[in-house]
C-alpha cells in the first residue's frame, strides 16, 4: 500500500469530500491564499474558489458562530482553528450553540453538521496557550464529538466520517504527527467513530492513549517486552463516542490499566476512563488504575523542563511496571 503523511491524509480527506459534496466548504484564518498555517489547504482556493475556501478575519467567535449558523442552514462547514487552543475564544459557540442548539430549540430536524479542525499539542518549542491539549474540556459538552487520530490512516478515514456526520465534531491534529507517514489506501474509505484500535496486542497490561501519546506508549511497550512484560496498546481514535468495548475487553484480559494523556491531570479523558473502569470492570482489576499525564500547571517553555513535564517512554514504562508488580 502507498504511504502518505498525516498532513497529506487530511488534505485528501478535505479534497475528496469537497469534490463529492458541494455543501462542504472551508472557513478559517489564512486558509485561502496562504494555504493554512500548517499548509493543509494549499491550492484549495485555486481549485474551489473564494466562497468555498473562505479566508476570514481574526475572529474565532465569528468563524465558529458562522459555522454553526451555516450548519443549521444545511451546509457542511469545516472550520479551521489556527490552533485548537484558540477554542477557548469560541467556547460559547462550541458548547452552547453548536452542541445545544438542536436540543434547546428542538425544532424537528435541526442539526449542526460542523467540523472544527486544527493543530494542538506540544510541537517543537510550543508554549502555552498554543501547545495545550484542550480536547477533554469538550467531553463535558453534550452534542459534541471528539476525534484524535494517530496514524495517517486514522486521519483520513476519521475526517471523512466527521464531514459526513450530522453533529459538531472537534478534530484534533497533533502538531508532532503532521510529518509522520503511514499506509493509506487509494480507495475511498470511512472509519466509524467509537471504534478504538488495538495497535499492539499483549496480555499483561493495557495502555490506553490518544493521538501522539500512542507513540511513546508503543515505545514503552517495546522496552517492556525486553523485560518480559507483554503490553497491549489501545489507540482510542475518538474520545466521544468512547469505545468502552475495546478498552474493557482488553482490561478483562490483562487486568491492568494505564491511561496516557498529554493534557493536565485533573478531569481529563484519563479520569473518565478510570472512573468507567472502576464502575464497570472493578472485578477484573489486578492493580490500581494508573494515569500518566502532564501535571496541573502550565507547560514550561524550556526544553529540558518540558521533557520532564510530559508523559514519556520512561514514565509510561514505570507506571506499567508498578501495575505489574503490584502486590
Amino acid at each position, binding site marked *: 500500500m502507498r504511504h502518505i503523511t498525516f498532513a497529506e491524509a487530511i488534505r485528501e480527506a478535505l479534497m475528496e469530500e469537497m469534490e463529492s459534496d458541494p455543501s462542504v466548504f472551508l472557513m478559517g484564518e489564512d486558509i485561502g491564499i496562504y494555504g493554512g498555517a500548517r499548509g493543509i489547504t494549499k491550492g484549495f482556493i485555486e481549485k474551489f474558489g473564494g466562497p468555498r475556501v473562505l479566508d476570514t*478575519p481574526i475572529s474565532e467567535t465569528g468563524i465558529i*458562530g458562522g459555522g454553526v*449558523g451555516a450548519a443549521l442552514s444545511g451546509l457542511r462547514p469545516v472550520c479551521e482553528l489556527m490552533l485548537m487552543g484558540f477554542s477557548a475564544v469560541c467556547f460559547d459557540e462550541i458548547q452552547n450553540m453548536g452542541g445545544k442548539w438542536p*436540543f*434547546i430549540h428542538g425544532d424537528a430536524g435541526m442539526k449542526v453538521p460542523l467540523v472544527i479542525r486544527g493543530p494542538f499539542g506540544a510541537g517543537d518549542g510550543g508554549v502555552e496557550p498554543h501547545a495545550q491539549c484542550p480536547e477533554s474540556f469538550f467531553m463535558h459538552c453534550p452534542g459534541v464529538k471528539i476525534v484524535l487520530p494517530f496514524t495517517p490512516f486514522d486521519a483520513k478515514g476519521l475526517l471523512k466520517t466527521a464531514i459526513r456526520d450530522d453533529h459538531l465534531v472537534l478534530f484534533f491534529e497533533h502538531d508532532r504527527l503532521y510529518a509522520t507517514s503511514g499506509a493509506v489506501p487509494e480507495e475511498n474509505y470511512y472509519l466509524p467513530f467509537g471504534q478504538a484500535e488495538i495497535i499492539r496486542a499483549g496480555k499483561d497490561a493495557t495502555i490506553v492513549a490518544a493521538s501522539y501519546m500512542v507513540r511513546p506508549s508503543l515505545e514503552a511497550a517495546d522496552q517492556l517486552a525486553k523485560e518480559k512484560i507483554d503490553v497491549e496498546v489501545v489507540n482510542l481514535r475518538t474520545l466521544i463516542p468512547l469505545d468502552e468495548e475495546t478498552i474493557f475487553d482488553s482490561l478483562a484480559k490483562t487486568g491492568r490499566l494505564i491511561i496516557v494523556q498529554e493534557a493536565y491531570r485533573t478531569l481529563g479523558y484519563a479520569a473518565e476512563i478510570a472512573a468507567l473502569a472502576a464502575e464497570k470492570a472493578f472485578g477484573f482489576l489486578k492493580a490500581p488504575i494508573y494515569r500518566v499525564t502532564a501535571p496541573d500547571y502550565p507547560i514550561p517553555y524550556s526544553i529540558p523542563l518540558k521533557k520532564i513535564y510530559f508523559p514519556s517512554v520512561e514514565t509510561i514504562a514505570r507506571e506499567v511496571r508498578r501495575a505489574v508488580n503490584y502486590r
Partner: protein
Amino acid sequence: MITKGLTLKLYETMLLARRFEKRMAELFQEGDIPGAIHLGIGQEAFAVGAVAPLRPDDILLYSHRGFAHCLGKGMSPQEILAEYMGRKAGCSNGQGGVHLANMNLGVAGVSGCQGGNHVIAVGFGLAAKMKGTDQVTACFFGEGTANRGTFLEGVNMAVLYKLPVIFLCENNLYGFSTSWDRAMATPHITARAKGLGLPGKVVDGNDVLAVYQAVKKAVDRARAGEGPFLIEGMTYRWRGHHEKDPGTAYRSAKEVKAWKKKCPILRLKRAIVAKKIAGARALYLLDQKVSQQVEEAIEFCKKSEYPTMGDLKKKIAYYDFKPRTWI
C-alpha cells in the same frame, strides 16, 4: 406605502403581543411558568414593525425578549405558551423552554448567551449566499450586547462578505439594570457600526409605521445583494428585566411614566381612528378577538400534557452517539 390592511395587521399583532405578555406575567406569578420570563411590553412596535417586512422563509434570530417577534413571524400563542409551560404541545415539546423555534416559519432561535446572535447570523447569511437563495436573516439584539466582541466580529464579517443580514437593535436604554450611559461611551449603536462600514439608521422604535418602512428598505436592499444594514429603534421596556425584577431600583417612576405615555399601541390606535382606517367599535372588537385568542391558548395549554420520557427519548436520539458500551 403602507396599506390600510397592513396598518390594521400591524395593530392586531402588537395588540396580540401585549395581551399575550400581560397574561404571561400573571401566569408566571401564579406559578404556571417556571424559570424566568423576559417581557417586551412597551417595545412591541419595533419587534412587530421589523418582522413584518420579512418573508416566511427569511430567518429570524430574535433577542431574549422575543414574544412579539415570534408572534409576528406567525408562531401561534399556543406553541409559545405551551413551550414556556413545559408542555408537550410546545414548539420544542416543552423540553427547550425559553428558546422558541419553528423553522417552517424561519424562526431559528436565540443564542442563550446574549450577543451570540451576531455571529450565528453570519452563518445564516453565508449559507443564503452560497446556496444562492435570496433569504434575508434578521438579527435582533439589545443595545447592551453591542458591547460584546461578537458584535464587532459578526458585523465586520457581514460587511466584508456583503451578507444579506439585517441587524436590528432594540435600544431600550438598559441592559438589565445598567443604563446605556453606564455601559457605552457613545449613545448610538449606529455610530460604532459606521466605523465598521455598516450603514444604519436610528428610528423612533415606538412608531411601528416608521420602523416598518425603514426595515422594509433594508430588507429589500439586502435581498438585492447590497449587503447588511442596521436599524436602531429607540424604545423602552415597561417592566423589569425579567419578572422577578420590579425594574424600580435603577430608574425613576417618572421616567417609566413618561415612556408609558409613548405607548406604541395607543399611538397607532389614535392614528387609525384619526385617518378613519377603522372605527373605535371595530378596534374594540379586534381587542376582544385577540384577548379571546390568548384565553383560548391559555385554556388549551393548561390542559395540555407534559412530555413523557418517551417524548424525551425521541428528542435525545440526536444526542445518543451510540458508543460501544461495556456490560
